[in-house]
């Protein structure tokens, strides 16, 4: 869609805004498909990596050994905040519209962390090591936003 926005030649420069937009159709393959299917059904899963590690979110290949991963592990919907930040003014593209935290959440039973949002209400409520739980989206379709966000447990 090429919408050339308002042209104005204020100073000596010709400016115009335009959008570059497309809805990408991503085929996800077996591993990501399995994880997203689980989310759709309200289930959290990890995958067995090398050296007994459990990786969540499940990746197709172990980040250290490059070995292919395939064995899924059921996990609870709770976890621990390993690090976090506080977004005072959400950007237009951010999915939560009032101040929130991004966090790396280590789901109980996993050895790696998942990047997602935490709706904690205020920065003061955020602390490294705090327990959080998934707030499942009302309608789920097999997409990472089936986890609407995390909230303090």
């Amino acid at each position, binding site marked *: 869609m090429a919408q050339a926005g308002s042209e104005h030649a204020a100073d000596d420069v*010709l400016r115009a805004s335009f959008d570059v937009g497309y809805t990408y159709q991503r085929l996800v393959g077996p591993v990501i498909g399995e994880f997203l299917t689980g989310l759709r059904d309200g289930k959290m899963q990890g995958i067995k990596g090398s050296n007994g590690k459990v990786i969540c*979110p499940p*990746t197709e290949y172990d980040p250290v050994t490059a070995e292919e991963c395939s064995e899924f592990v059921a996990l609870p919907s709770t976890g621990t905040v390993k690090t976090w930040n*506080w977004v005072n003014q959400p*950007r237009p*593209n*951010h999915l939560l519209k009032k101040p929130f935290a991004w966090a790396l959440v280590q789901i109980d039973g996993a050895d790696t962390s998942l*990047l997602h949002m935490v709706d904690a209400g205020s920065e003061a409520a955020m602390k490294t090591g705090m327990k959080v739980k998934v707030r499942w989206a009302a309608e789920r379709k097999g997409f990472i936003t089936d986890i609407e966000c995390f909230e303090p447990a």
Partner: protein
Amino acid sequence: MREVAIIAYAQTPLVRDCGAKNDVELVMEVVNAVKHQVGFTNQDLDFFCSGSCDYLGGSAFAFVNALDALGAVPPINESHVEMDAAWALYEAWLKIQTGHANTALVYGFGKCSQGDLPDVLTLQLDPYYTQPLWPDSISLAALQARALLDAGKITEEDMARVVQKSRRNAKSKPGTQLKGDYTIEQLLAEPKLVSPLRKHDCPPVTDGASAVILATREVAEKFHKRNAYITGIDHRIEAHQLGSRNLIDSMSTRIAGEAAGVAKGKVDIAELHTPFSYQELLVKQALGLGDDTVINASGGPLAGNIMMSAGLSNFGEVAMRIIKGEANRGVAHATSGPCLQQNLVAVLEGK
């Protein structure tokens, strides 16, 4: 290993919005400037390599249009990486090592004011699990800063000192975007942008371009009595998911620094491509640099950060200071990806 020197360097002024200049007009400025510094025409240049990112301007072939700036008639030996131009320099350095070239012109450009940079950089992230949540580059850096603060590796005062130093150093270099004298108290009094980062802990959005010319010793000796030779250069990448990386260390910088031989001698100066204040401390530690190394005398990326060419500029900043005799040995560093996922380190020595 053929000795390769950096014999010319040019950078456009670092500005928030270069207005009427398009990519070609930015690149022409620096390409013609470095050619002029050594009196080269295309016949004297065996290879051209550049770094840029199509998404900065929202057009599929930004680097193709920029080719007009090279006067590539008759045709030239040319290549391009969709990475910071420091990796284009690495490709040119390898070309010279093969013997296929003795000289090379390397350039990079980024007119970052055109797009919404923190969102454009979101497209670097895992397209299935992460990008759809739209975490911007500042939010990701804030996560790393918090991890370092929690681990007691840095304090908010440390971050403010990096900014203070950058603004002060930037006064000595013409064309820097953000400069001035600030106290730690003033800086710490600023509100948080994305906690724990304040606005000044983050890189400004900058339009600009930079270029260098590489040459073997035989050629370099015609131009400077004392040249800046690349005695070691290496680059490494880490795992992509932030959740499976050790964010309080920079493993790839350490390996690259060891392979480039940083520790083999005193490091007088270092130009580190650390766009967020806390990253200067992390990279300094990973390279094992002491307090006797002057870091980012140019002001560094906090004083002006040309996306896709800030890393290349560091090579020029270190080389020129060595040529002028202000230093004997220096380190140039470049980074790519979220939270320093990929890092390139080079050692330059005056001979």
